[in-house]
């Protein structure tokens, strides 16, 4: 069993037009699977559904957030896919951020203003995570209080438990999950670093195929079995960044 693949392009070779892709990270530089996103932007695939917390805020937003910190040259996010016209639908908790004032419009705004036809679905962050976890866990649907009393009630089943309203939410099924981890072995076991664990560990196993980019590939047995965050069963391919 050897899940290590030589490069990001090989890891993404079977991504197809119209694929639903879960993208790890929170939105900031740390947890973003930049290598995989850059490789994806170089493939001739289109009409992708890109799913993530804030997967396409763009480099300018990162620089604004980073203030005096230097954004690494290797950084890339899903805005590359938007620029290329590869995105047919964006499912995100934060497609753009009102609190940052940028010189240029946010990438999703720009893509829409340029006339691209892109659907956007807003999902509260916790519900997004829970819908991914449900997909991994074989749970087709669940109820949550989040979003009750808001526009999200429209078109959703509202149901009471113990006198309280809840919304029915469904598992978010996807074809590929692209994530960033710190270290991985040939079985696909992964560990992360700090707050970069974020949506990456949530996405692992939630899509039909999970592809992880890692800072370091280690020998089998090198990771502490008590500290492995993502067991290899949830990971199909591992590629060194």
């Amino acid at each position: 069993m050897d899940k290590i693949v030589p490069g990001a392009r090989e890891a993404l070779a079977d991504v197809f037009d119209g694929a639903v892709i879960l993208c790890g990270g929170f939105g900031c530089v740390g947890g973003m699977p930049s290598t995989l996103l850059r490789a994806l932007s170089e493939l001739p695939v289109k009409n992708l559904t890109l799913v993530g917390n804030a997967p396409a805020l763009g480099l300018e937003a990162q620089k604004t957030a980073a203030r005096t910190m230097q954004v690494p040259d290797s950084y890339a996010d899903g805005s590359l896919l938007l620029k290329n016209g590869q995105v047919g639908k964006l499912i995100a908790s934060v497609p753009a951020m009102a609190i940052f004032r940028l010189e240029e419009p946010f990438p999703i705004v720009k893509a829409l203003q340029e006339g691209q036809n892109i659907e956007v679905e807003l999902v509260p962050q916790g519900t997004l995570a829970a819908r991914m976890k449900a997909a991994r866990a074989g749970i087709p649907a669940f109820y949550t209080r989040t979003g009750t009393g808001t526009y999200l009630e429209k078109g959703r089943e509202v149901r009471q438990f113990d006198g309280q309203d809840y919304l029915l939410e469904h598992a978010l099924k996807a074809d590929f999950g692209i994530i960033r981890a710190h270290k991985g072995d040939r079985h696909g076991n992964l560990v992360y670093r700090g707050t970069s664990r974020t949506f990456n560990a949530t996405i692992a196993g939630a899509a039909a195929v999970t592809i992880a980019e890692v800072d370091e590939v280690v020998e089998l047995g090198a990771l502490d079995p008590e500290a492995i965050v993502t067991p290899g069963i949830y990971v199909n391919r591992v590629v060194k960044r």
Partner: protein
Amino acid sequence: MSAPKNRMDEQTIAMRVAREFEDGMYVNLGGGIPTLACNFVAEGREVIFQTENGGLGYGNIASTEEADWDMFNASFQPVTYAPGMSFFDHDNAFDMIRGGHIDLSVLGAMQVSEQGDLANWAIGNLVDYDGDVVAWIKTGRFPPGIGGAMDLAVGAKKVIVAMIHTTRDGSPKVVKECTYEITACRCVSLIVTDMAVIEVTPAGLVLKEVAPGLTPDDIQAVTEPELIIADDLKEVEL
């Protein structure tokens, strides 16, 4: 409208918010002004900060030298490590939030209503765009982003809002009814602004504290609902 000189700056708002942190509390600080509050925990109190991107028990806002891309808060600000800290993924982070394990959530806001309704994810209302999110985003005007606010507003045991009292053009943000898209209903219990501290009670909004140099009338002038003046009204204590 009160003159800007009598308004507290963001750091001072954060200092006032931090006075609400009791010893042993689990606190989540939302993006914007709230995340600044972690730096102002009172001496002798141990407060555990949760950040929705997967950390519990971080320290302060990090200096440029301390900054690490793998250690940041909900505002994308780098934070420092503190002993007892742990990391987890988003699914677990929101178990804590949705599951009622967070004692206090401090959130920014675009509007707060008299009843404690919170609007903090969009400036505007979907109705203005015929319910079409894409049409709204296309305008580029205050593009909406929910983030973790809806989960925090319904899941935390207590919700405090920390915000600038008025919009950029001076309109009230403390309103009778929210006209912007709602985050959650009847969830806010305290409003801390650059002008005042206001408690949301069943009887109405109670003005508890005013910024130095401001009078209750100054606050009322930029607040839509009628304020009840607290018997023990005082100047904001830091």
